[in-house]
């Protein structure tokens, strides 16, 4: 494919969901079924169009094209390289599954005529972030996505949701202002904010450091980095489960993506290494990992526990990024994928449980595995991947990250990863084990009245097939991309790392 058609496809990928938003809003009035179908269709089309870019990417193609000059020297432009492609493909895939899952999950909910257009719009904004060709465009889409996602978070419109949403919105604005500050400093120093010029800031200076910290605040806030994670444990659990899955599974990654772009395209690896600024990121990442895992232990609400777990998992990505070598970066990019599959599966499974039984408290989940074997099975699989049990993809990312840490001569980081894995085990296993091996409290009395029966009773009360299909596909991904000998995602991650460290070629 030539450049021109690639550019057209990229524009369509971003524009299609955005254009479909008003269409969906209109269709809502006519038919709910049509709306649902159209939403899935849009997400699917976006995913397929993104995959069309693969042959171009495999040949090492890079596109940088300015579309529209908004101010002198400041453009809306698009950029495509292997990193953009990987994340865009991942995002649209997860989005597709979550949209499919939403159909049944949201059927009982109110205000679906608001939910679907917003869901699809955020997809467009998210793809826009990954395809942005300069920091300014990235900022525009980043803000657009963050602010529109607010509507997903407060969907339930309860007092709790509104409170969490307000916190989220204020943090988003603060993050946005920090980004604005950072971008304007980069513009002042380098005269451009394009991602296509290689390195914009080559010399360490006070302003450059301020800009780096601003980016850390702006993107780190989104990625749930300590100490800016405070909004996350409130905001993710209150959203409807498919939205939680997207928030944790994909939208958090936009923060990590932004930081990767800043590290490799604004500053150079050499500059960060020689000035030691990457240590700021490393320290924050370590605190984030340990703190997220430790606090997750204390949560009893399943979605809150998952949200805290997301904080610690994104810490892995940031840690991998801060080490700045090949293995660590491969691990970080691969973990973006792994975590997206695992956490989306977990949130969707948790959503199915809440949807079917109304149980949110972990202590009430005893025996749930017999009630909902497929859901709980997928949940267990994803949870085991989180802990890092070998054949699953979580193991592969931790292994690669650990290799990277050792390459850099930092065995301390390996310890951090191990401690965090242990903590993961401590807070996931108490969900899984009772779910399968204990019987629900008072079940015998209520349902049969035959006290003292020790039979294992399977009384299947599963979620709908559509919901299950989304959960199962994600759970299978965790095995598949941990086990397969020809691991396409792992090789993509490896190539991405080579590409970024090699300054634009494999």
């Amino acid at each position: 494919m030539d450049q021109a058609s690639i550019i057209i496809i990229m524009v369509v990928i971003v524009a299609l969901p955005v254009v479909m938003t008003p269409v969906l809003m209109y269709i809502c009035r006519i038919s709910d079924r049509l709306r649902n179908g159209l939403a899935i269709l849009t997400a699917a089309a976006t995913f397929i169009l993104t995959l069309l870019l693969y042959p171009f990417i495999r040949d090492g193609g890079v596109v940088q094209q300015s579309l529209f000059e908004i101010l002198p020297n400041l453009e809306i432009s698009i950029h495509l390289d292997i990193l953009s492609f990987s994340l865009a493909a991942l995002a649209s895939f997860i989005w597709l599954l979550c949209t499919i899952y939403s159909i049944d999950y949201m059927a009982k909910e109110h205000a679906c005529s608001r939910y679907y257009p917003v869901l699809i719009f955020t997809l467009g904004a998210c793809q826009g972030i990954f395809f942005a060709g300069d920091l300014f465009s990235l900022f525009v889409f980043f803000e657009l996505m963050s602010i529109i996602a607010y509507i997903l978070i407060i969907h339930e419109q309860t007092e709790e949701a509104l409170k969490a949403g307000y916190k989220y919105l204020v943090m988003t604005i603060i993050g946005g202002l920090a980004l604005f500050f950072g971008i304007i400093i980069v513009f002042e120093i380098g005269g451009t904010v394009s991602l296509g010029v290689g390195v914009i800031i080559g010399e360490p200076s006070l302003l450059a450091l301020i800009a780096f910290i601003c980016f850390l605040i702006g993107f780190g806030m989104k990625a749930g980095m300590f100490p800016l994670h405070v909004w996350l444990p409130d905001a993710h659990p209150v959203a409807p489960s498919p939205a939680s899955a997207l928030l944790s599974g994909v939208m958090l990654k936009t923060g990590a993506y932004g930081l990767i772009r800043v590290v490799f395209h604004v500053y150079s690896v050499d500059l960060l290494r020689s000035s030691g600024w990457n240590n700021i990121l490393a320290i924050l990442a370590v605190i984030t990992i340990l703190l997220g895992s430790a606090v997750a232990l204390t949560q009893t609400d399943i979605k809150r526990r998952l949200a805290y777990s997301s904080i610690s998992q994104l810490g892995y990505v940031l840690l991998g990024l801060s080490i700045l070598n090949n293995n660590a970066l491969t691990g970080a990019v691969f973990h973006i994928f792994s975590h997206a599959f695992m956490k989306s599966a977990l949130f969707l499974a948790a959503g199915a449980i809440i949807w079917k039984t109304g149980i949110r408290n972990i202590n009430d989940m005893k025996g749930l595995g017999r009630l909902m074997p497929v859901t709980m099975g997928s949940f267990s699989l994803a949870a085991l991947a989180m802990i890092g049990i070998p054949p699953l993809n979580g193991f592969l990312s931790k292994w690669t990250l650990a290799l990277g840490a050792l390459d850099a001569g930092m065995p301390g980081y390996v310890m951090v990863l191990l401690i965090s894995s242990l903590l993961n085990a401590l807070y996931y296993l108490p969900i899984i084990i009772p779910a399968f091996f204990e019987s629900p409290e008072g079940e015998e009395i209520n349902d049969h009245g035959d006290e003292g029966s020790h039979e294992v009773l399977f009384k299947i009360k599963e979620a709908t097939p559509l919901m299950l299909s989304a959960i199962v596909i994600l759970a299978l991904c965790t095995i598949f991309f941990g086990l397969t000998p020809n691991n396409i995602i792992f090789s993509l991650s490896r190539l991405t790392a080579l590409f970024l460290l090699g300054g634009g070629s494999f």
Partner: protein
Amino acid sequence: MESAGHQPVLIIVTLLISAFLSPLLYRWRKFLSGMVLLAALTGAFVTALTLLGQVARSGELSYYLGNWPPPWGIELVIDPLRVYMLLVVTGVSLWIFVYALRDLEHELHHDVIGWYYSLYALLVASMSAMTLTNDLFNLFVLMEICAISACAIITIKDKRECLEAGFKYLIMSAMGTGCFLLGVAMIYMVTGYLNFSFIQTGLAAALSEYPLNIFTAAALFIVAFGTKAALFPLHVWLPDAHASAPSPSSAMLSGLVIKIYAFALFMIFYRVFPRSLLDAIPLNEIILWLGAMGVMFGSIYAMLQTDLKKMLAYSSIGQIAFIFMGIGLDQPLALTGGLYHIMVHAFTKSMLFMSAGAIIYSTGVRRISDLAGIGRVLPIPLLAFTIGSASMIGLPGTGGLISKWYLALGALETGRIFFLLVILASSLLNAIYYMPIVINAFMSGDEFKEKVKTVPPSMQATLVVGILLVVISGIFSRQIIVLFEQALTSLY
């Protein structure tokens, strides 16, 4: 310098004539009266557009009133910046007037609407002339007309609070014009000229001989325009005046009238004062600090308000201070930001006041806390309010971001990061007081309780136009910025 056609004076004269005609026609045919003024305003806007074409072709033009050449006669100058301001004035006042046609029936007594049209025409005429005039005494006269008609469109609503606010405004404003006149006299004393360009050369020569006269005149000018444009701490009249006036008046006053004085101060600084004067005393520095304080205090006061229009009025104090910060930073990029903010804020704040007006029109609610759930019954006004808030915060895709971008860039260029932080902090404060209103209006679980009257289509249409203007000024700003860059390089 080439001479222009008669368009500049035509704009002013047409508006003045329609100011006389409107109340007379109103007694005969009510509808016709409004249409005459609408036609005059449209004519003014279109003529301003032709002036833009002329300036683009042949650069700076001048027009001698009554064919008397300066320094004796009054000179009107048409240059890119003035035409820009003229377009903003005529365009925005046309847009607000379409809204006013329906809204006034609701807010005013029938007998006075004709007079309102007259005052409106006078106000627009004086503001248009103020953008073009190149003569200090002429500027003084126009300021008086502007002040009196502005006062009258507040007090025309015969409520106690309007009279009180109008009176306060009149006194403060008279003090401002008094200071200005004194300053003009002092300048005249040392130079013997009233024409801007002649004064500029004259002052450069006189600076060493009569420094005290000139410094005093400069101080008087700052006080004069500071009062008129509600620069902190001379803003005390503004909240009452803007909040109590009928909504179209509020939109005019907050959207245009305060800005015309900020623009006049900009003209005085860069077209009347020679560079040596600006270097000799830290005039810009004073404006900068007052501006920075205005930005912060305006936002902080606004947070404390419970009345919707009061809140918008206090927010104007913060926003006008951005324009002053642009002047204060004394740097082309910052000036670009400040001048661009004139337009952005004219669009945004007028739209916000109009949407507040639409809310009051249809429900009578003014208290912020009573707006829960109103977004579901009045979607367009509240959508306009949302977009306006976004522009106030400076979110991407709105004009607010562009002006903040340039102000921030100017602050960085001069190495004064503190002021950049002030700009960012004010954005955050704006977010904190605008967002809850929007959230509450759309997302609150409560249903809106009051009785709702439908908003007339013409009012809805003006709000939709407002949304488009705010968004367009955030996206298609390149041409205007380039125009500023060219115009401003000539100042340095």
